[in-house]
């Protein structure tokens, strides 16, 4: 076991875990935030997506030892204080989720996409979300919501997800 310091959603956490513990299980079992989901354990489905310095990573296959204390980690719980990030609002407006299990990962991947590319084409969306599976098949509603969120963000800048 080793001690690690990580900064998640703007808050520092000290954890004492095995060095190969995936970030996913640190966030869920040690810190107790369960919005980040376990889906495949191999970085294939994207349910465990969190943002590392603004970029989507698969936390199920990211060992805690690879996280530096100064790294900024963002999980779904930190995306907004009142469920009012433009992507979340668009998701609610379009009623995107079905079972909802993959949606934390989808939403964070989209938030990162819109941060770096405020006006994504359909092709950009396909590329950015290729790593996030939705078994319920909410893909078309997500695409609609992404374009809607992009419009909102353009109209009201200053909602970076980093």
């Amino acid at each position: 076991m080793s001690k690690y310091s990580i900064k998640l959603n703007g808050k520092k956490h000290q954890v004492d875990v095995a060095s190969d513990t995936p970030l996913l299980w640190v966030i869920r079992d040690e810190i107790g935030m369960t919005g980040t989901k376990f889906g495949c354990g191999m970085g294939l489905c994207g349910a465990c997506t969190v943002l590392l310095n603004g970029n989507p990573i698969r936390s199920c296959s990211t060992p805690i030892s690879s996280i530096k204390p100064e790294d900024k980690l963002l999980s779904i719980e930190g995306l907004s204080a009142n469920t009012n990030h433009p992507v979340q609002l668009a998701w609610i407006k379009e009623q995107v989720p079905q079972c909802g299990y993959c949606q934390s990962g989808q939403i964070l991947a989209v938030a990162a996409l819109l941060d770096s590319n405020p006006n994504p084409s359909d092709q950009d969306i396909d590329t950015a979300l290729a790593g996030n599976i939705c078994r319920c098949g909410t893909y078309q509603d997500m695409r609609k919501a992404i374009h809607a969120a992009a419009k909102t963000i353009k109209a009201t800048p200053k909602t970076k997800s980093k």
Partner: protein
Amino acid sequence: MSTNTTKQTSRRDFIKISAQTAAFLAIGFENLANGKGVKVKNMAHEPHIGVEINPYVLINESGKVTLFNARPDMGQGTSQSIPMLIAEELEVRLDQVEIVTSDGSAKFGSQLSGGSSSVSTRYLPMRTVGAAVKEMLIQAAANQWHVPISACYAKEGRVYQKNKNISLGYGELVAAAAKLPVPANPVLKNPADFTQIGKSIPRPEIPSKVNGTSKFGMDVVIPGMLYASIAHAPSIHAKVKSYHGEKAIASPGVKFVLKTERKMPHASTEAVAVLADSYWAALKGKRLLDIEWESTVADEMSTEKYFNQLKEAGKSPGFEYKESLTGDVNKAFASANKVIEASYQTPFLAHAPMEPENATVYVQDGKVEVWAPVQGPDSLVTELATYLGFKKENVKINVTFLGGAFGRKAYYDYVLEAAHLSKQINAPVKVVWTREDDTQQGPFRPGMLSVMRGALDAQGKVQAFEHRLNGASILNQVFQVPLGNAPDPWAEEGINLPDSPYTFPNRRNSFSLVTTKIPILWWRSVYASTNLFGQESFIDELAHQAKKDPLAFRLELLAGSPRFVGVLKKLAELSNYQQLKAQGKAVGIAIARSFSSICTHAIVVEKQGNGVVIKKVYSVIDCGVAINPRNIKAQVQSNITMGLTASIKNEITVVNGQTQQSNFHDYAVLRQGEIPEIEVFVMPSAEAPGGVGEPGLPPVAPALCNAVFLATGKRVRTLPFDISNV
């Protein structure tokens, strides 16, 4: 003992008094409660306090209304649709109430989310519940005001006196209302007056699914619980000949290494569990196990052998479904002008819900409590009580949200595993399956073979039609019902006469049982998902043989079934079918009725290289009364995506008992960027509601393959197929 409830009482007294005065509804539906008094709810750690007017409605003195949803939500939207049926008649808005999933208690009756039956079976009973409670509240208000009930009306949680500016909240009325007789025949609202049903109201749980707060089984934490990761037999059915757990137990965090069992409905198999204080420690410990397995049935378990058996079985006539038998098929074939034959094969499939199977169970002192994503808490109560030898009243189920299920989470092996372990260690245990467990261990949709035969006369009219189903029986394997000399009565879904009312003068459906040790189960739309591939592909083949347009061919054969004709005509309009055809576009269609709803798709493909690309899917569904049209569209999109995945992406193959696929890299599902544009139309209808969660799936594969034929001239008869190289 009776108590006067009109005097001022404290909250505590109120509840006590209410407990003595509460009434129960006893009207209009099966399995009604025969309980005797108010229960203080204690589900999901939240006490629900108030007067239980009936099992589904709880109102407390502050006016808070709790509605119990007896259909677990796996993404299909029952946490809205079912309570909405009560709320519509009770005159409360859904955003005014708390919705709680039922706990498996007998008073709720059947609580299974399955067979797309939630709304269709609950539509009148739940509305009746709401209407009865509303009438009691109105009566209580009328009594208090000394006016006739005709002078009162209910709206948004209050009873108003007409033309006067006075009202009483439901909380102020509930104690008096609970003492009134339950109306035997409460008046239901005229659908024209619905304010919620049919209105695409936002689903109440959606915000929790975009901010990470919705609780799935995976998210359950019980103080003192240990996490279990289980080494399942690589060949599914096996005994543990020997195992060495020394390395595992020495691994940090690991508390126990235990030989355990996986109890399926039809068989038990041995396994070894590693229990630890974190999931990662348990998983690491499992990887350190050294197990020698012994299987006597592994070599019987081969999907290749199984499909060869199906082909053999398909040569025999099978046991016929008497109710579908029309005319004399053999005579008609013997004298036919032209006979066409073809066989269609569909693979074994894993459900692959995004949330792997998991359950948290605490067995203590002859009682058991479960926190888990399950489709039917009532059937789980029965199964757990039997398994543990407990009384049913000592089994309590807390149903979480289900992160997808598709039939899988009505099979409770993973819950029983947690119970078995908890009982051994006297602590709460959370079992979490890996994706590999989910992909490899089954149960799977059974592989099936449709052997089809059709006869055409000189005018291209169908003279005879035969559909021989060949494959494993869920009824036989899961429910251990011997079939004898009869077809599996469940397996004909989607092609029985009500579901497939094509007017063939001679018709025969039959079933030949081929058993397998590979665990099988219903998978979204069950046999309709396999049967319709053969049925609707072969109808298409017959149409081409008869040199008729496949849409016109179907319209002619379905002329006596107006709802089928209605959706096909709407589909033609929605897709501009005639125009697409005139432009030479490859547009394949299929229609299917399953779970009491009719759904038809038109899929447009274009040739590209050696294969095709899907350009667009048009869909029309007639599901009777639409509860939430937007959600119905979402479910149809969901079914189209899952149906396309099942057509072109994945299959489960088993060699020597070992599933060859293990995770999403080799059991692939469609991703963003692989989905065509989908346009869904929901037919307006006043007919009784049918299913929504599944009927969109069966027509997907045949519509796609019918389009592929138009684009390439090649007929796909085995799924899955490589869409880039047909």
